[in-house]
């Protein structure tokens, strides 16, 4: 049986663990609020850009000179999987869920005989991918850094654009985690190149998702509702192609920015939940240990008393 001193030490150490997890939970809760606000604030830009893009896409549809980023290269032999994860761990299954989905997709594509490259944004995913598929990881993968801003997303988008222009891939898919609530994040896959307003859920999540709020209001919805409603087709200046050539890479950055923001909110939510669980576990453990401690103390006292009484008895 553990000695009283050992038990006391264990109780103390669990207590300090609880203090840490509790603090982390509170920090995550505060950060979550900020992250949600940030994601909320970034929405108008993304929405308006989608609207413009939809109008442009409708107007160049079917033309042979449509930009490749919009229409595709005509082949789907090589894939680029962009994996967005968090920089830091201790947030439950958040990162591993994302990595698992990306890994599943990569293996599947490879079995189909496609060439696959991976761009990992976020330190955790980067580490995992370096271990799982070191041969596929492209240069330019890295961390998000302390401050999540548009410039970071822009840099990654520029990298992707460059890879595309160099003919390194035909199709680009983005794996990120959509924020639903502090308790639930949904691993989501979105096609970035060729442009598509569709969002595809990770297969195992299908059916579980009740509100597809981000999926609607994409390409079709926007252009049938808006451009026609307010006075027919647009004029374009200088012309469709040159606008698209600027707009498409910009859109890439916006999509990545958005997914990073969603990710960030999800990460904080997942951490909050995970730390809440950890705090509760610590409390249970303290309770158990305290009980054992008290029992042991009682036992020690009883034994001592017994010894004294029996010693006195034998002296008589």
């Amino acid at each position, binding site marked *: 049986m553990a000695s009283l001193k050992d038990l006391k030490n264990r109780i103390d150490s669990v207590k300090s663990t609880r203090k840490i997890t509790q603090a982390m939970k509170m920090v995550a809760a505060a950060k979550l609020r900020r992250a949600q606000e940030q994601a909320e604030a970034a929405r*108008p830009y993304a929405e308006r850009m989608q609207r413009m893009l939809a109008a442009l896409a409708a107007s160049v549809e079917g033309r042979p000179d449509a930009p490749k980023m919009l229409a595709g290269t005509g082949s789907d032999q090589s894939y680029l999987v962009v994996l967005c994860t968090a920089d830091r761990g201790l947030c439950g299954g958040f990162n591993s869920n994302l990595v698992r989905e990306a890994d599943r997709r990569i293996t599947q594509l490879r079995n189909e005989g496609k060439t696959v490259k991976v761009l990992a944004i976020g330190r955790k995913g980067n580490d995992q991918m370096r271990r799982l598929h070191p041969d596929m990881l492209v240069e330019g993968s890295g961390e998000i850094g302390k401050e999540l801003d548009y410039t970071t997303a822009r840099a990654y988008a520029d990298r992707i654009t460059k890879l595309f222009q160099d003919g390194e891939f035909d199709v680009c898919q983005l794996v990120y985690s959509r924020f639903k609530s502090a308790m639930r994040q949904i691993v989501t896959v979105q096609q970035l190149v060729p442009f598509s307003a569709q969002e595809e859920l990770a297969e195992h999540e299908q059916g579980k998702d009740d509100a597809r709020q981000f999926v609607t209001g994409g390409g079709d919805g926007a252009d049938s509702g808006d451009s026609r409603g307010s006075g027919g087709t647009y004029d374009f200046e200088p012309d469709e192609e040159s606008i698209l050539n600027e707009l498409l890479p910009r859109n890439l*950055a916006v999509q990545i920015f958005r997914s990073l923001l969603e990710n960030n909110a999800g990460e904080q939510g997942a951490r909050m939940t995970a730390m809440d669980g950890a705090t509760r576990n610590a409390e249970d453990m303290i309770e158990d240990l305290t009980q054992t401690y008290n029992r042991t103390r009682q036992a020690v006292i009883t034994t001592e008393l017994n010894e004294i009484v029996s010693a006195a008895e034998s002296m008589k």
Partner: protein
Amino acid sequence: MAEQEQIAFELVSPEQLLLSEGADMVVIPGADGDIGAMYRHAPLITSLKAGVVGLYDGRTVRDRYFVAGGFAEITNERCTVLAEHPIKVSELKRADVEQELKNAREDVQDAKSEEERADAERRVDVADAKLRALHAVEQG
């Protein structure tokens, strides 16, 4: 003039919706030249060059914003400008801008690769446009 309907103007940056208000006329720096948009303007989508977005009440300028490029969508009743790093012209400081221009020019000189040079040249253009914007304001 008072009866005239206003055009709804929105200025949006990737981070947030900066401004959403009405104006009699909005002047935006289109890629092919400045465009003045009033209520009932024909629908138009254009890319923007670095320059100044001006909001007009009647014939007087109410607000000026500097944008370093972006896009604009004009419909009959609204004008939406998507811009990265928009800033109020009144918040620009001549000394800062001059320093920015100097740094960018030096970067062009020191550029080691084609990309670095292109990036630096772009920054020179932006700083140059900022300077012009300040100049225009000072001239009235």
